[in-house]
């Protein structure tokens, strides 16, 4: 197995862990962390593919994505905090306002 394949496999594994985490874990903060995990898995796949083209564009893009991810989490954490202030719990099962 060469390096590229290994990296892609790691990327897929990270994504799968993140996805399963978002679906099965009930703690809101853990779900958030799992989402970051999925993001980074995609990032990893991106740089892996970028390496093949031998250009720096992929690496630059990844840094831009980091910035975006940082600002995203800066928004997401306060939202979660507000949610907790309302519901007094981290359990996602308590928030079912969208129930039909």
């Amino acid at each position, binding site marked *: 197995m060469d390096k590229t394949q290994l990296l892609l496999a790691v990327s897929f594994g990270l994504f799968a862990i993140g996805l399963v985490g978002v*679906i099965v874990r009930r703690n809101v903060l853990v779900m958030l962390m799992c989402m970051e995990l999925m993001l980074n898995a995609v990032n990893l796949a991106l740089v892996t593919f970028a390496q093949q083209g031998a250009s720096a564009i992929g690496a630059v893009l990844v840094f831009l994505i980091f910035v975006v991810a940082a600002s995203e989490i800066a928004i997401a954490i306060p939202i979660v905090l507000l949610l907790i202030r309302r519901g007094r719990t981290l359990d*996602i099962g308590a928030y*079912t*306002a*969208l129930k*039909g």
Partner: protein
Amino acid sequence: MGLLTLIVVLPLIGFLVNGLLGTRLAAAPLGKGVVTTVACGLPILSFLVAIKCFLDLLAGSGAPIVETAYVWTQVGQSHFDIAFYFDRLTAVMVLIVTGVGSLIHIYSTGYMKEDAGYGRYFAYLNLFLFFMLMLVLGRSLLVLFVGWEGVGLASYLLIGFWFEDPEKAAAGKKAFITNRIGDAGFLLGMFLLYFTFGTLDMDTINAAFLAGPAPAVSASLVGVLLFIGASGKSAQIPLHVWLPDAMAGPTPVSALIHAATMVTAGVYLVARMHGIYVHAPEASALIAGIGAATAFFAATIAVAQTDIKKVLAYSTLSQLGFMFVALGVGAYGVAVFHLYTHAFFKACLFLGAGSVIHALGGKQDIMHMGGLARRIPVTFVTFAIATAAIAGFPYMSGFFSKDEILWFAFASERGGSQFLYAVMAGTALLTSFYMFRLLWLTFLGTSRMDHETEHHVHESPLSMTAVLAVLAVLSAVGGFLPLPHFLEPVLPLAKAREELHAMEAPLMWAAVAVFAVGLAGAWLFFRANGALADRVAPPFAGLNRLLFNKYYIDELYDRVLGRPLVWISEHAFLGFGDRMVIDGSLNGLARLAQRSAGVLARVQTGNLQMYLLFVLIGSLACLAWGLRYV
């Protein structure tokens, strides 16, 4: 803008000003004066312009003045213009409409002085004049029809002027709906004419009919269809029921719209389209028959009515019947002559009745009047003159016009007969009788008013009495104008049968005798507060009840037409069509949506992770499908 357009547009300006600002103006301190000036000034101006046009017409070669104001629409080769046509017939009509109209506007300033709807009233009145002038000036049937519908609208608005009273609002609706029945016939006639000639210009159509070979359309069919329209507007049997109810409107409105001008529109229409009727003996016979029946039956009803305005309303029906008889026997100019004299004396009678009602604070029952002659002398004198005119006192206007109608009913080559003459002479006798009965019960004898009413009796203000005086003078002397002769270039007169010419003088004496007998009968029965009439009445109670209830025609229509229609509407249209089909299908759809939503809503658990799982499954399914098929 040409002069003819100006005649039409001036009242429209009055309507716009008073319609938009009238109510607010009338409430302002000096505003009432402005409303009055606009409302009366513009019709008078219109009258003056009409006189100018009339003089132009007389000075000219006799050719009609034609003026195209606006090309309404163009469809292929044919175009529909708003064009005005001014010949001798139009001139007479326009002068009556604007002249009598202006007088009644002036009268109304006194009559409606205290009414809260002062501005609105004059706006409607000006609107009526606008549409009426459109009707008589229009060159094509289409423009005439616009005016025709417009006067119907104005009539509806003015009958229901005091719409807080449901009965009055209903009277307005009745007039409107009854007229729609006639209009259906009128429209069919118009379609037929347009289909045949490709134009609706009345002069062209008349010329086509009068010029030799018969056009490819049955003149009688068109004639009958147009007459159905005319009989709706002019309240002839069987569409006469709306006119007596129309008396719910203010009295000057009854005088202007439901006596002098609008109801004569049907007469005008038939006279204007005489080219058709010259070729349609069947339609003419129908017109004469309906006219005679209306004249006679309305006159018998008038004998038994006790409401002052109802008597006059039935008298109007009867006189319109006279006009249609004249039209039916081919004496078109004579019909217009009677229209012209009728406009004066009937307007005077209605306005006189308005003055009486004004004096009595709204009371209309002649059984509770009497002895008013000394209390309101000007009203009495003018009313008496107009009564004499309608009854046919020698050398007053009604005498001339009615005598000519009787003569043509007797001797015309086109449908005159002894029978028709006998019916019309009988009607004339009844006319004289019920009019003098009205005069006696209202003004002579002794007072039968209650104390409260009697105390308040007062003569009307100058704005009203002056108009009464003018109309009384016109009623007295208006007949000296040889109108049928004047109109002969536009309206041909039927010839009288040669062998009957010797009868002309005896028939005139017969007319005088008829008048005298009616007068004597009224005097005999109704002097001294109707003492003799009361004494001989009991054996005739059934007849009296029949006449008082107008032959139960309203009840008959209600049974035969009204109730079945209500039943069908209730059960077929409302119950089945509306509630079951329309409401049912819509409610069914709504219920279906509701039920399926109930099932589908269970998917919406509100659980975020469940949603995510669905998204995941969905994406995977898409992916799998893509791999398999793309």
